[in-house]
């Protein structure tokens, strides 16, 4: 199981990294989402992989999972939603104002292809 989670984390991170390095803002947002997934799972995994337990105190249960990474990740998930929303608003605003959705706020000079869309 550990090997699989590790490989999965690696692949999702790599995909996120590649998308974040793109030139248009939308793929960057997608890439950030992927990286968020990877980071959140990574933090959770720092409490080790414990199937079949829970962080909820119950009688006659002796084994629990580590609740600390979970608390950290929970807020991280919600915050990443906030930042994604902010980034999307920024992208829409920038496109409205500069006519471009390039991450540098202007179409690249050499390959000045229109970005398409409305």
């Amino acid at each position, binding site marked *: *199981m550990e090997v*699989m*989670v*590790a490989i*999965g*984390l*690696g*692949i999702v991170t*790599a*995909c*996120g*990294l590649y998308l974040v*390095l*793109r030139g248009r803002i*939308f*793929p960057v947002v*997608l890439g950030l*989402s*992927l990286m968020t*997934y*990877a980071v*959140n*799972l990574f933090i*959770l995994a*720092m409490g080790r*992989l*414990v*199937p079949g337990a*829970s*962080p*909820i*105190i*119950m009688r006659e249960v002796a084994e629990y999972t580590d*609740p*600390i990474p*979970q608390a950290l*990740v*929970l*807020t991280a*998930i*919600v*915050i990443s*939603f*906030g930042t*994604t*929303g*902010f980034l*999307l*608003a920024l*992208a*829409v*605003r920038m496109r*409205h104002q500069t006519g471009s*959705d390039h*991450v*540098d706020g202007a179409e690249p000079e050499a390959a000045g*292809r229109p970005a*398409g*869309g*409305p």
Partner: protein
Amino acid sequence: MILPIIILLPLLAAAASLLAQRRGFTAAAWAAALPVGASFALLAGEIPEVLVGERLLICRPWLPQFGFNLSFRLDGLGLLFALLILGIGLLVILYARYYMAPEDHIGRLYALLMFFMTAMLGIVLSENMLLLVVFWELTSLISFLLIGFWTHIPLARQGARMAFVVTSAGGLALLAGVLLIGNVAGSFELSAWFSARDTIRSHPSFNVALVLILLGVFTKSAQFPFHFWLPAAMAAPTPVSAYLHSATMVKAGVFLLARLYPLVGGNLVYEYVTTTVGLTTFVFGAYVAVFRHDLKGLLAYSTISHLGLITFLMGLDTPMSSVAAIFHIGNHATFKASLFMAAGIIDHECGTRDMRRLGGLWRHMPQTAVLAIVAALAMAGVPLFNGFLSKEMFFAEALNLSHLPLLGGMGPAVVTLGAMFSVAYSVRFIHDVFFDEPHDLPRTPSKPPRYMKVPAAVLAVVCIAVGVWPVHTIAPLVNAASKDVVGDALPAYEIALWHGFTLPLVMSAIALAGGALVYWLLRRRYDLHLHVPVRYTGRLLFQQAFDGAIAVAGRLTKGMENGSLQRYLALMFSAIIGLGAWPFFQHGFAAGATATPMMPLALVVWGSAMAAALGAVWFHHARVVAVILIGVVGLALSITFAYFSAPDLALTQLAVEVATTLLMLAALAFLPQSTAGESSPLRKTRDALLAVIGGTGVAALSWAVLTRGQESIAWYFLEHSLPLGGGGNVVNVLLVDFRGFDTFGEITVLSIAAVGAWILMADLRAAQSVVIRPPEADGIMFTVAARLLLPFTVLVAVHLFLRGHNQPGGGFLAGLMMAVAFVMLYMGEGLRETLVRLRFDFRILLGAGLLLAGLTGFAGILAGTPFLTNISWHQHVPLLGEIPLASAMAFDLGVFMAVLGTTLLIVTAIGQARRKPSPTGGAA
């Protein structure tokens, strides 16, 4: 409590004068003077007790674990300085009232001066050395603002910058020195330092600390070779120069020498460094002052010279030399402040301070002339003025250079030479300004306002009174201050005008006669007025270093920043990968032994997530497809959370996933639907390489960690969640109780992001010409379903919220669920219709949530526990019986409201941008 009040009253004056300036200059002056006067009166009330040897010590712990306390001391030394600061401060208030021009912002000047006064009082009354350093840096900062007060003058800005860089760099050295000694002593209280004197001095790091502290002293007190900032600071308004550069700021350095003398006195490094620097500065400053044509320039170099004299005396390290130093500090403050004020009056009435153009002012302003001449004679060390007394003591001590083999016995001769130059520039000041023929006056001098002369007159009277009756005026104060510096070793002495025909008297006579002769020779043989000063090397070197640093920074920035985010990110990722790879190569790589059995279903879920992630990269040019594929990864992640015993995370991820996907699709309506393939193959290869290396690193790291055992502090929370937090869901208890402050910060960040998104979209709300979905395309099935589902979803959200403390749920999750219900309504009914029907501003909800969460924190404070401590109690409710209640529930409610408000605000912000004429239409 009287000491903090004395220190803080000037701050009140600062605020008052800012408010009063609308009613004119006089009102502003009164507003500044009254609190300062009160402070002075309070301090004066303490004089009798301090004079009989009592010390006022106040200590209030602030950060005791760092040794940082709000502790103050009032002893003889502090009293003398505080009296100077407040007394001359009062005179400067009066002086500035008449000096500043009507177009000047006098409230700002007063506010800064009074703020400076507080900082200065803080230095001289601090018992805690860290506190002293804080006040020390404050004086550097405020002096920057004061020197650059006339911001439109380039020289003022330049001088301010120079003073700030030099003095605050010295302040950093001082801080380092103080930290070193505090580390050895185990405390930052002065009394602790003095009682641990031997331990501190025998420590190997003592000499380093000493040199660092001396650096702070020398930069602040403008000692050679750091003196150059003081002449540059003469671009300040003259009241500022009179206050900062005669009586206060520059005295902070020598004050610190006196303050730490019980600790450092008797150390050879201290003696050699201080006497050498002091004597050099004394002679050099006096020599240069003779050749300055600018009145204030002459006074600035004279100040440098006199500060050198004081430093030299402190370094001589005999009991009487310390007495002489302290006495001269007071004398110099009085005559130099008076001279600066006279220079200001002359500048004010004649329109120039250039001694080559001035002359014959005796006829136009005889009263000012008398005042300036009195002060100048005191500066020259003429008998019957206060400067004479301390200079005699200085000569007497300079003859005792035997224990310091400095200059091979030439010490007294060098000292006399320096004193000759002092006389020469004093004579020049008197002769050039008041008696010589005027050469090129810009205008006929007008009569100065009467009250402008009063402060200078008061100081001139002090000069004479101290000079004639030292025993009845200043002696007790000097004595009390010296006792704090020298301690019990202070011998019986008497400050007297007449000691008989002694060697110091002969030296005085030589200096006076020689100084006059030097000036006469320079006028007759050299024609002093044609002298062109050499380029100020110190200032020049500083400027070169400064410009060089700026140029290097500029080149570095230009080289690295080409404005391309892609390039920055690639560089940053490379750097992170490099940092992360380092330990791998350093320590090798090996996995542990833990292995959890594989689940076939997990393979399917996780396999589809990996495929979807790769697919999102492959298809990212088709944006809608990519969004959906990313959503698949998110759902798989949610299932993974559930499988690995994190039910709260699974539910949260699910809700966020829905909202995020909707948001992305909504935003896509305003963005291109596809991404053009524009990256070159080279760039693609580079990015792919970075991505693969980064991903491999993360995978290797995760594998190494996951297969090893773990030592966690989880047991603490699992054990205490029920007894301390009153909840069984440890994750929720962590969020709202143990780590409540963190959560409070998180929802604040979240709210900022939402409000930011809202503001970004402000202009687009009505202007954007895009329709997401025309109304006719609405699916009736969906609309009906959304309506039907709404009450159930709300119910689920409430349920999740209520059980959150003991079961999966809580404010975050409930807020998201509720938001999703409303978002579905948006989709079914159309955003505008829903909003109209809701008639609710989400910003209010968000703000109320934050407020509630914050207020809950204060409940803890009211109960006497720290911020956000959970308070729980059992409440008896009729019919229901005992119900456990906790302030954490109110906090969680705040979280719920903030999250709900945030989510809806963001969705609304992006969804509301639409074409004007379109009456309806789904938002997302």
